[in-house]
């Protein structure tokens, strides 16, 4: 069994613990694929506007908006998804008849658990099936919620044995379970808690969903500053004698300079250890994609482009 690499699949879910740069990575991936000439749909599931901010465009709605030659952007809206679904499947003008749809929707969503999740995943599977795009990059829910979302079709399938919904979950499961079409990437940073959560999540993805984990992206890897010998030299500089000599030669206070470098090296060291833990815990065949810490002034298009370039370097 040789499934294609993550980037060659049509439906790509990108998840990760909050704060690790999940959205930036999703945006960079979408940018990279669009630059390669693929028709790309990038979708933000949490609808906070962060994905739009990564491209510096206004927050999109449920209907995809073109923001570049090959790149469209949409925000998930489960109520709009339900509306679209009802229009496509029931072929009755239900929308006008059922009273305030929002209220009915809230009701259904609360009454039948998994409805919001299935409407989210369903819309994405629908786009994958329609093949209007070569790649659908999903800035998916954070680690705490992704399992509920990806497992929703299976959960509904277990609950509902007949009816329209049942026939819907079957084809969704076909797409989600197919490693040629669908893959999940977990974004993490080489820090203790994100790594621990990534390892835990990788296990849950395998046990509780039918989606294949296709790559782990490690963001914010710090550059190697010193070799072992340079490290010794630096330690000599940090002694009182070293500080005095350096300050005298430079003619300036050097405390801040040395502190910053100490911070950089100890961060680097602890991150390298966490990266090792991650490697050791994942299947040896699991692709691990490394992205550097960007010491950038702002987020936005420039950071997104930098990430896209690094991804291209790692993946192509």
């Amino acid at each position, binding site marked *: 069994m040789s499934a294609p690499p993550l980037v060659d699949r049509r439906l790509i879910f990108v998840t990760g613990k909050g704060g690790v740069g999940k959205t930036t990575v999703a945006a960079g991936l979408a940018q990279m694929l669009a630059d390669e000439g693929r028709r790309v749909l990038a979708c933000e599931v949490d609808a906070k506007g962060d994905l739009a901010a990564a491209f510096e465009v206004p927050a999109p709605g449920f209907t995809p908006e073109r923001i570049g030659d090959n790149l469209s952007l949409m925000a998930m809206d489960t109520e709009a998804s339900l509306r679209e679904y009802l229009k496509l499947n029931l072929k009755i003008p239900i929308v006008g008849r059922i009273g305030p749809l929002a209220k009915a929707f809230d009701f259904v969503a609360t009454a039948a658990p998994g409805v919001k999740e299935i409407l989210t995943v369903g819309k994405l599977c629908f786009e994958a099936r329609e093949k209007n795009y070569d790649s659908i990059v999903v800035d998916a829910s954070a680690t705490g919620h992704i399992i509920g979302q990806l497992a929703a079709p299976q959960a509904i399938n277990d609950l509902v044995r007949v009816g329209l919904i049942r026939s819907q979950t079957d084809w969704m499961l076909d797409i989600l379970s197919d490693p040629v079409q669908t893959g999940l990437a977990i974004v993490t940073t080489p820090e203790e808690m994100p790594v621990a959560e990534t390892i835990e999540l990788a296990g849950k993805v395998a046990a509780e969903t039918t989606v294949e984990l296709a790559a782990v992206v490690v963001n914010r890897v710090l550059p190697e500053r010193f070799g072992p010998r340079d490290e010794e030299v630096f330690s000599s500089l940090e002694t009182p004698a070293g500080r005095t000599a350096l300050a005298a030669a430079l003619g300036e206070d050097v405390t801040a300079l040395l502190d910053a470098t100490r911070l950089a090296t100890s961060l680097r060291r602890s991150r390298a250890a966490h990266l090792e833990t991650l490697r050791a815990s994942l299947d040896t065949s699991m692709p691990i994609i490394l992205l550097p810490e960007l010491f950038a002034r702002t*987020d936005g298009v420039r950071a997104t482009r930098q990430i896209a370039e690094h991804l291209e370097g790692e993946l192509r």
Partner: protein
Amino acid sequence: MSGSSPILELLGQREIVVACGPGGVGKTTTAAAAAAQAALRLGGRVLVLTVDPARRLADALGIKEIGNEVTEVPAEAFVTADGAPVGRLFAAMLDTKKSWDDLIERHTPDPATAARIMANPLYQNITGRFIQSHDYIAMERLYELHSTGEWDLIVVDTPPTRNALDFLDAPSRMADFFSSRLLRWLIAPARSGLFAVASKPFTQVADRILGTEFLGDITEFFVSLQSMYGGFVERANAVARLMADERTTFLVVSSSETVPLREAEFFVSQLVDRNLSVGAVVLNKVLPDSLADPGGLAAARGLGERAGEIAGEVAQVIGVDEEALVRVLGTIAESYGDFAVTARREAGARSRFEAGGAPLVSVPRLDEDIHDMAGLLALGNLLIAEP
């Protein structure tokens, strides 16, 4: 320690401190560090309740496992240079499934109804897999623990919610749901044995979408739940009142990075809109001020430009290889420059932050990860340091 630390003040005055904020900023750790400080310095019985599905708190507290049941953190675990703790620290985790079961048992009129609800496949799914139920039960459990009166202070961290304050809306959504007309439509036929005229179109549509069997499960589930209606709504309202009570305050936790800060600002505005108390905003992982100092940048530039010359002067004095020193000096200049960019950007973002009048507490970035009580106490000391 004087009383001028805003965090220590909150910990001493309130009964419930809710740590909320974007994911990945150290919310859980901050909650645990604050609770440990309260137990250490202020005394009383302090409980830290984690509702995060990722089980991180046990690691930091040095407890093997935190369960739904309250566990005491042994006092010797946090004896410090300042002495033994004056209070006691306890920890508990939210077990969604177990808490739901308890709730059902408490509110159903008889064991048979409880058993019927728990056997329903819908119930098993609601409690096991889905997210909103987590939000609701978190607040419910907090209320439950608070009303036992056993705790002087409960510090709770909140689930990483999809929408900023889902967990706050959960009780009222639950109450709305039970009072909704649609629910009455749906369960009317089951109760009367007849199809109420009004419910017919809805039932037909629902039947087409969901299938009869599933619809039957839903109906049965809510008919059973109906017996809990009064207790549930009353309870949900009580939970909402407790959140708004002056005994409760919110600690908005964030880092100084752009995206989390934007989210934290939104949290603050939402809390203010709801007339809830924003006790303080805690910004974690703040880089040292010296990095944003323009003097430092000039020094770094000088070091980079004159590395050869400076190495010539210094190498002999400290007895290191001159060539290696040139390299090291270049690296120092470069690494200072890199971090200075980040530090300046974050300092700018902090100064623009709208905290809604609440004090802003900056906690410096630590070199090492926190994985034991000593680390938690060190973080706590920074958290309660005077501004």
